[in-house]
């Protein structure tokens, strides 16, 4: 299927609905007094878009808009992830005191625009769209990061993010221009064809790939493109930090997988992946993965601000996910997709608890969690414990299954990858220390006389409990999700 502009619109439902919602939000913001209604509208839009996405699963796969974007199970998967992340974020924002102080109409508009950007990142099959969609997500993120009025941290974070983002995407588009120069095309299929004919300078190709890594890597947050993330997570409004950590990271992985797997690798008759060019880019990812998880975990050890800690832990998790890419197999990719879903659930849950506590104490400092379980907040404390241990990768929580599948994919390859697996398990042990430290503060430390009893908004529970239940349920029975992620691994190539 290779469709022209107008024909493509039939298969563009999710995007159209989301765009419509965004426009409606802008207009309604002028009239509606109670801004909570806008949030409700945003959720309704997301749900409608979600339903429309599920509708497309029965449609034929193919190129849309003259091969600019592609419609396949893989892109639909990331649309679902982006919408779920957006819905959770909006829900979280509803109960957040932070968000009440900002211009909510613009906030929800930008949030949905960011989700729309993720849609395009996941389905881009042309370097131009890849770049534009990445910028769409970035630009909205810069604004949302600096959205807290008269908050120095927030402004500082936005500026840092902007500078890092600008440099990274500039580097990326420079790399893309090299690719264009060497292959004569921006379109993935044509690039692959040109690469298959060979006669490229491998050094130049390698350089171009590295430049592109810089752009993708800053979205996924892997070392050495990670410096912005702790500041941004800490400065941004907490619900948006959650969105950033989940959706933006997933989008980065999507665009990376799309470019490096169906883009510049080919599928062997056995169904596995093989390199087209002579450039050993998986090697780079192998080392990036090991370094990323180690740096993330070591830096997280001494953080006292929970959002900062979760930022570093996010870096570590990006490192775990890169493992699945470095081995260049379908098992690895499907493990990554599984991990993305699980990470969405547990990380949004963790940020939700942070937001709840911050609502009450006004800060994300670890001291605010002292004796949380004994101050009338047993349920959030227990849920937070579930999320944190799930992030560590302990059974019977979903995070364990995520890691289990990744380790299984890595060990299946054997050979040098055993070292990767060893580094990863060592990292899991290190990560236990800082996750358990929070649990310790919540349960093992007694509250001090000055610590007040906890009061929690009801709207938070409606999200918290389902997330916690899902974290446990997926840890015990994960067949359906594995099936879904395996089926999501269908790329439209030609």
């Amino acid at each position, binding site marked *: 299927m290779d469709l022209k502009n107008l024909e493509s619109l039939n298969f563009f439902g999710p995007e159209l609905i989301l765009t419509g919602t965004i426009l409606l939000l802008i207009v309604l913001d002028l009239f509606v007094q109670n801004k909570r209604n806008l949030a409700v509208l945003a959720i309704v839009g997301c749900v409608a878009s979600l339903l429309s996405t599920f509708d497309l699963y029965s449609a034929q796969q193919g190129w849309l808009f003259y091969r600019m974007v592609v419609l396949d199970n893989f892109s639909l998967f990331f649309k679902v992830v982006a919408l779920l992340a957006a819905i959770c974020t909006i829900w979280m924002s509803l109960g957040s005191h932070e968000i009440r102080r900002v211009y909510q109409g613009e906030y929800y508009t930008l949030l949905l625009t960011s989700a729309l950007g993720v849609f395009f990142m996941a389905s881009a099959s042309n370097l131009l769209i890849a770049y534009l969609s990445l910028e769409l997500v970035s630009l909205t993120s810069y604004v949302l990061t600096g959205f807290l009025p008269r908050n120095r941290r927030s402004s500082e974070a936005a500026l840092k993010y902007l500078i890092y983002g600008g440099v990274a995407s500039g580097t990326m588009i420079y790399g893309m221009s090299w690719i264009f120069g060497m292959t004569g095309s921006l379109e993935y299929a044509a690039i692959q064809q040109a690469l298959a004919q060979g006669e490229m300078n491998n050094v130049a190709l390698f350089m171009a790939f590295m430049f592109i890594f810089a752009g993708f890597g800053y979205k996924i947050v892997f070392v050495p493109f990670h410096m912005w993330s702790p500041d941004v997570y800490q400065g941004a409004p907490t619900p948006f930090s959650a969105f950033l950590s989940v959706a933006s990271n997933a989008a980065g992985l999507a665009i990376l997988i799309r470019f490096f797997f169906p883009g510049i690798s080919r599928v062997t008759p056995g169904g596995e992946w093989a390199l087209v060019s002579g450039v050993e880019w998986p090697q780079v990812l192998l080392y990036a993965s090991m370094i990323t998880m180690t740096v993330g975990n070591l830096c997280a050890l001494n953080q006292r601000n929970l959002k900062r800690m979760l930022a570093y832990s996010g870096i570590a998790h990006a490192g775990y996910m890169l493992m699945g890419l470095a081995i260049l197999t379908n098992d690895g990719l499907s493990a990554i997709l599984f991990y993305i879903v699980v990470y969405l659930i547990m990380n949004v849950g963790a940020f939700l608890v942070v937001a709840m506590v911050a609502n009450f104490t006004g800060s994300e400092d670890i001291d605010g969690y002292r004796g949380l379980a*004994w101050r009338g907040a047993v349920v959030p404390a227990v849920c937070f414990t579930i999320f944190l*241990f799930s992030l560590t990768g*302990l*059974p*019977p929580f979903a995070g*364990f299954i995520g890691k*289990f599948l990744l*380790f*299984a994919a890595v*060990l*299946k390859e*054997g050979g040098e990858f055993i070292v990767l*697996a*060893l580094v990863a*398990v*060592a990292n*899991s*042990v290190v990560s*236990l*220390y800082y996750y*358990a*430290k929070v*649990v*310790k503060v919540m*349960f*093992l*430390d007694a509250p001090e006389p000055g610590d007040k009893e906890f009061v929690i908004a009801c709207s938070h529970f409606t999200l918290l409990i389902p997330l916690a239940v899902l974290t446990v349920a997926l840890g015990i*029975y*994960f*067949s359906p999700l*594995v*099936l879904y992620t395996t089926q999501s691994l269908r790329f439209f190539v030609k």
Partner: protein
Amino acid sequence: MEHNVLTYMIFIPLAGAVVVLLLPSQSYHLIRWVSAAVTVPPLLMASWLYANFDTTTVGFQFVQKAAWIPAYNIQYFVGVDGVSISMVLLTALLSFLCIFASFGIDKAVKGYFALFLLLDAGMMGVFCALDFFLFYIFWEVMLLPMYFLIGIWGGPRREYAAIKFFLYTLFGSVLMLLAILALYFNTNPHTFDMTVMMAQAKNYSTQSLPFWPFNELRWGFQHVVWMAMFIGFAIKIPAFPFHTWLPDAHVEAPTAISVILAGVLLKMGTYGILRINYPMLPVATADMAYWLLGALGAWNIIYGALCAMAQTDLKKLVAYSSVSHMGYVMLGMASFTTQGINGAVLQMFNHGTITAMLFLLVGVIYDRAHHRNIEGFGGLAAVMPVYTGITALAFFASMGLPGLSGFISEVLVLLGVWQKYPGLAILGATGVILTAGYLLWTVQRVYLGPTNEKYKTIPEIDGREIFTLVPLGAIVILVGVYPSVVLDLLRTSLDNLNQIIIPHLPS
């Protein structure tokens, strides 16, 4: 033949934990008695298991199997054989008794008993699981309640002890996870079924690995996997040099948790080696046994005993005595003789009962005096004659006095080892003397001599405490006089295990 009994034994405590969570948190008595009631059915089922266990077959009994995650060939698969039956009985008994030993807990009672029951379910699951994935889940599920039970209800340095225990054990178990996956991918068809892995033991390569840096050792795939598993289990045993978490965890844990820790959790290390390393990796086992089980075990015996002798804290002394006594298990396992391996598993059972008694007894005195300093007592025999009597029984059993259970297992171990490695047997026997040394010295300092003025009016051991001790004391005497009550259960399976290894032993 399908049997639900093991499933009930695992999941009744789990259901009990949920029930306890639903009870009102202020009704302490209700929570305590409901928890106690929950541990009764598993105990009764354990007795039923004991009565109906077929001691003549090697295979697994009371098996239940169901598909769980078919995509990865993960099953729900439980069953017991001679290796695990004694541990299942021990777990059921100690869980029941420890609930009563925990009646003194008055902080966050609901949380304590819910976590305790969760721990109980995890322990039972580890001993029953025959699917590797299931085994690993249970193995890890125990960690969480243990962390909180030590961390919230423990002594002054509880936070340090809890996280140390957690990190150590997790380190071991992630290595085990990799080893499990390695076995999974080398089994055809890929499966986590332990019985299939045992049947395919000879397919696991022993060829020297090309990239292995110490090639003169000729380590193959089996050896590497064996090592990863062994480290995981050695941390649990705990074998030197991985033992340092144990004194901390024991000293800080509340009494009942110390009992569970020493009585059940330590056994999981040696149980794991017997269940997994022996039948699945026989060649590697034969190659490694002398140094990593035999010699290390002997070293554990001596080292633990010497450390125990130097302690001033009564509980720490008992903790180090555990290190020492688990050494006999390792030593006996390494001999591959009928006496040695039977003695080892019997020692696991005996140590479970004897150490449980010791920790309960230390708990009794700690509840009264609020310290455990050995030098701080003296002449307790005059004030607490009943307590002293029971203590003497436990100490003598631990020491290996004939007529009590510790004697039987230690003698069997030493007899077995003597046939193979006389040198190690001599070292092990030296341990008996050292044990007698530190225990008698302790008896003298705590119970004999002039009565300490401070404790002239200390109350005698009460009915509830006696209730927790008497069953254990009875078992200690019974097994000491008539060891066949336990040995008969073990023999067939253990002999079979020996037969698997013996052909691979270096001549």
